[in-house]
């Protein structure tokens, strides 16, 4: 078991290095002086020269690469010329907004995906199954940014049910005193129920839009797993013991179906990371996604580069955690099969 974990860990570290090499190669493909690109067209030649020296331009490629990754892992993420701040500061500042959105969306997505997959499988009625499947197809085919637009048009413009693209709280309200940076949590902690409600309402539509791709995927995956597991003989045996349908389903089918679904965790994160870039802008959400979006438009490559590397690291990390979790939870992996008489 320890050997398995060790190998997996090594694999992840290797993947991260591979990713950094890939990112390095791609970013260096940019035409022009990388230092100039990072600093922008307005920087002085002197600044460009000093940065060039710093990142090792003109030195052998492996020196450049070494500086590249050591800078990254030390948190030296460069400077955004268009925003006048260090990239690190910008990212740290805007992280809570995206984190709150991602958490909210995740909970929302998971709960509804589970509920619907259960409904589709347990009810045994082909109509329900068909509706859920249809919804998941449409969900997959709707790009998050388009859904964001549709949601806004429907809930905001037409029916005035929910707030529009005015960020986390809208222009009027003031944010609660900062504890975690998550407005909902902070508002609750400070007892500001009105603010909590406002923050909550503003989170609804973006969460839906962000989660749609993962939701479709999860519903389909869970449904397939549930169907497969329900047909296993041990479910029949459980029923043969006298268990009722739901009890047998709950105790034996669910855990066995959920287990392989765990591995989708990494993919969900991937969708969220990319999705945030797409939809935060639609909602004027002041998170990392919109930061990156603007950076792309302004050609502020320091930010873009850092985001790409961070995404890779997070992606690899989450996949690693999920795999390890799986190894811990599944007794077949945790306890090796030893032939016994």
């Amino acid at each position, binding site marked *: 078991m320890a050997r398995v974990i060790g190998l997996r860990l090594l694999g992840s570290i290797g993947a991260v290095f591979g990713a950094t090499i890939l990112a390095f190669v791609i970013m260096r493909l940019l035409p022009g002086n990388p230092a100039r690109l990072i600093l922008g067209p307005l920087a002085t030649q002197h600044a460009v020269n000093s940065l060039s020296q710093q990142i090792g331009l003109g030195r052998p490629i492996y020196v450049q690469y070494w500086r590249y990754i050591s800078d990254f892992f030390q948190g030296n993420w460069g400077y955004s010329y268009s925003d006048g701040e260090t990239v690190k500061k910008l990212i740290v500042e805007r992280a809570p907004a995206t984190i709150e959105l991602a958490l909210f969306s995740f909970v929302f997505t998971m709960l509804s995906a589970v509920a619907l997959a259960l409904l589709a499988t347990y009810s*045994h009625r082909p109509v329900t199954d068909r509706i859920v499947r249809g919804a998941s197809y449409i969900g997959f085919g709707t790009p998050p940014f388009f859904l964001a637009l549709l949601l806004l048009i429907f809930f905001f413009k037409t029916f005035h049910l929910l707030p529009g693209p005015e960020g986390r709280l809208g222009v009027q309200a003031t944010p609660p005193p900062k504890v975690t940076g998550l407005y909902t949590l902070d508002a609750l902690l400070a007892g500001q129920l009105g603010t909590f409600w406002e923050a909550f309402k503003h989170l609804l539509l973006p969460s839906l839009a962000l989660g749609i791709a993962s939701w479709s995927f999860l519903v389909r995956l869970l449904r397939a797993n549930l169907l497969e597991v329900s047909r*296993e*003989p*041990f479910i*029949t*045996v*459980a*029923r*043969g*013991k*006298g*268990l*009722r*349908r739901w009890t047998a389903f709950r*105790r*034996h089918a669910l*855990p*066995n179906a959920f*287990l392989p679904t765990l591995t989708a965790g990494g993919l969900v994160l991937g969708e969220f990371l990319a999705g945030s870039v797409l939809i935060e802008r639609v909602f004027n959400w002041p998170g990392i996604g919109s930061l990156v979006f603007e950076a792309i438009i302004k050609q502020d490559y320091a930010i873009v580069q850092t985001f790409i590397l961070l995404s890779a690291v997070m992606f690899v990390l989450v996949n690693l955690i999920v795999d390890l979790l799986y190894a811990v939870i*599944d*007794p*077949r992996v945790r*306890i090796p*099969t*030893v*032939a*016994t*008489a």
Partner: protein
Amino acid sequence: MRLLRAPDRAAREDAGDAHGQAEPAAGASSELALSVRGLSTVYETGGATVHAVRDVSFDLRPTERLGIVGESGSGKSALALSILGLIEAPGRVLDGEIVLGGRDIARLSDRQLGAVRGKEIALVLQDPSTALDPVKTIGAQIVEAIAVHEPQLRRAAARKRAADLLREVDISHAERRLDDYPHQYSGGMRQRVAIAIAIANNPSVLIADEPTTALDVTTQAQVLALLDRLVDEHRTAVILITHNLGIVSDFCDSVAVMYAGRLVETSGVDHIFLAPGHPYSEALLKCVPNPERLTEGPLPAITGFPPDLSSLPTGCSFAPRCPIGRELAECHERTPQPHRVSGPAGEATVECHFAEQRIREVRV
């Protein structure tokens, strides 16, 4: 003709239990453990309706062992599930009466059946590698079987019962092994656990659907011997579904031959080997390799294929393959009804137009 003769069975016979007959002997208890009348089950998929179980009737006396034999696709497993009320969509039980311990369980709701399953009637399935939940301990799964019917039982007591059951099925270090997971057990051990789960609450009827088919030959013998001992001790009636006639002759008292969803012949086990009434039963017996007949030529096979249960021909469903009925219009037009016939080794119920004739021929 007997294929194998196990000493235990002979001993039971000599002890005077009159199990070898289809009719209850005079003076034997008329209280049946299980009585099935007119059970029919269909599977409705897409355009086709598959008639898996067609008008099946049989009786099972307490401690009697009935073997149900048939090819794959004959409806044996569907029959087992139908009796237990475990047929799931797109299948459903069309009709039938299932009297267990005096009441008709076919009419019961799923919730009511829950009190019956595992308590009065239990199930053992074919494949031990998929019959147990892979992420739960063996102990938990045995305790579950007990706790469903005795919810007030304390954990420690339940655990002790589970350990006792493991010992009963010859699994050593029972206490420790309760905390193991199914993948840590061998196939034979898992099947023994499945049996332990089935007999946990002392059911009066046990349905075993090909319990040894997935095991190697040595383990098969062990498991069968175990089953033999357990059902004797617990005085359980058994329905043993199998395609292996050797097991039937060793283990069972009576046998029912299933073909295309119907029980085409039901009789005491001696009868079927001595004088099979139905041509299908006869053909099945001929298919079994017999060293005494090596010089007769190649092993006979039954020509043709099992019928498509969604589009059955009129008349006798075996007719297209029947050496007798293949050419006869009567067999293709009229569905044979169960005939009660008396043969050299007892009574039998046969669904063949020529049942009487065939039995008489054997006698002569």
